[in-house]
């Protein structure tokens, strides 16, 4: 078995960047990832709007560990291991819910929403006080828990750097989404969880991959374009899509960035930004923020891929996507539509319809992505020594900021014009190899 360092052939001086496909298939590598990445990195858990009131909770997992996020009696949101302190039963009975008291369904121990044990059933008769002191009956909080503008993250490594330091160069791009919402953002009702028979890193690449759009999503463009011819007028205003642009031969101002710490940005100027759901806010935003930032908010579609498994997509609609590894060849993917609170009804409706068009396993796009990635997984098994050569865009890669980045006032590690580039992947794979090799 090769080490992770050997699986990434990164020779900048020779203009070589290749990834060995064993990275997608090797179960030993997968175990290392669970320990060194999912055991040590900040990972997205849920949004604050899902745990707004005392007792609201969301049950999820970090790597292989069950955890839950809950709003306490003091209004503070915390994250605990989802494990009864008695004999290890999972405490939450639902994927999400509201409970001011969590009762273990196995033996009836009770915990409040702040994590304190409030009842050991039969405890007074059976335990000596020092037994309970020794055991520690309160719930165990995870090692680190933090919020960035309502996005809640957890980390199982007490020594990991703070959340904002980790998010680093991705922060200005996250702000482009959240700063459109003067009253804050909320997760819309409606869940989606689907399985992909492929390695989780294929989803990380796919989320920032502009190169597949004109092939995998060509049928999305023609299908939505056809639908608009059937309903003349019905596709006007905010409902109007820019799907057909995928097929356009015009040169679209676009690019990809490595913003450090494994985070990747892919962006493209929008075809009809005035159909965007936040366009009516433009004058208000221009009063509040520099022109360049507002241009980025409303006139540029962006995918922000946060290491290792989070996508914030703000293009035609707005999507949070998280992909959680199950095994080397199986991944669970969950998505949410996120929107500004108090959005106008027409904008909200258009945002939702465009979200359903693209981001669900019942949509006109995600099923094709899943099949494409599953095909890549099958192909990755094929050769003893198969390499993915990520040379696309090498020719045009520049250090630091391009013109668009300067408009936002940010300096990526490197920039590349055009959506059809693979160089942003370097960010992810360098972080991946570094973490597995440390």
């Amino acid at each position: 078995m090769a080490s992770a360092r050997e699986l990434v052939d990164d020779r900048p001086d020779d203009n070589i960047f290749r990834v060995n496909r064993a990275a997608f298939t090797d179960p030993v590598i997968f175990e290392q990832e669970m320990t060194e990445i999912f055991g040590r990195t900040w990972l997205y858990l849920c949004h604050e709007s899902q745990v707004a009131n005392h007792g609201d909770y969301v049950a999820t997992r970090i790597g292989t560990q069950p955890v839950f996020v809950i709003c306490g009696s003091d209004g503070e949101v915390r994250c605990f291991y989802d494990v009864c302190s008695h004999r290890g039963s999972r405490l939450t009975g639902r994927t999400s819910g509201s409970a001011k008291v969590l009762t273990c369904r196995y033996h009836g121990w009770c915990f409040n929403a702040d994590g304190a044990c409030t009842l050991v059933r039969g405890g007074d008769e059976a335990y000596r006080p020092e037994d309970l002191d020794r055991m520690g009956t309160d719930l165990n909080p995870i090692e680190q828990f933090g919020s960035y503008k309502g996005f809640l993250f957890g980390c199982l490594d007490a020594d990991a750097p703070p959340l904002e330091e980790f998010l680093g160069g991705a922060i200005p791009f996250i702000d482009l989404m959240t700063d459109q919402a003067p009253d804050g953002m909320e997760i819309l009702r409606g869940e989606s969880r689907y399985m992909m028979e492929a390695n989780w890193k294929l989803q990380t690449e796919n989320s920032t991959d502009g190169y597949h759009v004109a092939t995998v999503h060509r049928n999305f463009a023609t299908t939505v374009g056809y639908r608009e011819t059937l309903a003349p007028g019905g596709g006007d205003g905010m409902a109007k899509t820019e799907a057909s642009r995928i097929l356009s031969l015009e040169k679209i101002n676009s690019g990809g960035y490595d913003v450090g710490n494994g985070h990747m940005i892919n962006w493209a100027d929008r075809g009809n930004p005035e159909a965007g759901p936040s366009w009516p806010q433009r004058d208000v935003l221009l009063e509040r923020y520099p022109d360049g930032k507002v241009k980025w908010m409303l006139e540029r579609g962006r995918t922000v891929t946060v290491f290792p498994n989070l996508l914030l997509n703000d293009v035609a609609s707005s999507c949070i996507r998280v992909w959680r590894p199950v095994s080397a060849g199986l991944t669970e993917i969950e998505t949410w539509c996120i929107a500004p609170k108090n959005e106008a009804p027409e904008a909200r409706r258009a945002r939702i319809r465009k979200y359903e068009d693209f981001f669900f396993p019942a949509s006109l796009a995600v099923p094709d992505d899943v099949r494409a990635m599953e095909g890549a997984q099958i192909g990755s098994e094929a050769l003893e020594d198969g390499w993915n050569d990520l040379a696309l865009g090498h020719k045009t890669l520049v250090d630091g900021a391009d013109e668009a980045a300067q408009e936002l006032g940010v300096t990526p590690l490197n920039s590349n014009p055009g959506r059809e580039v693979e160089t942003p992947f370097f960010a992810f794979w360098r972080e991946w190899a570094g973490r597995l090799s440390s």
Partner: protein
Amino acid sequence: MGGAFVIMTVSTAAASHLLYREAWCLDNKRWDEWLALYTDDAVYWAPAMDGDEGWTDDPDNDVSLMYMDKAGLEARIFRIEGHDSCATDPLPHTAHLVTNVLVHGEEDGLIRVSATWIVHSYARMRGGSVRGGLYEYGLRETSDGLRIAAKKVFIHDDRIVGPIDIYNV
């Protein structure tokens, strides 16, 4: 006797026949005949899950798995027939089992019918899968016969494997 008040209803046999006809069209890939079973103002709605027991119920404010008008349905067929979507080409073989058909009577000008469904789907090389759920229909008598003006599909799968589309639910 002008302006006669007509109580709309259909027999269980007539409602069942339409639902079976739809399943037959889907399983035999008779797409144009399938589309013709829907009125021009039809709404096709597959709500998303909301929590462990609930479903989204407001398509303007909540996300649905699918929420489509007739043009949306036609676009789904366009996508299949284009053979350019790796999720829908090749198509799996599907077998719809539609049962427990109940006619509930008229509401908001439509005849309300519920049913239970199971779809066995077999994709070559990938193998078979079974998915199940409930249907709620709103039917209308037209000059072409009984037609579907509203269909609501409750899909019970939580961790969805493979694509979900009009042909496999």
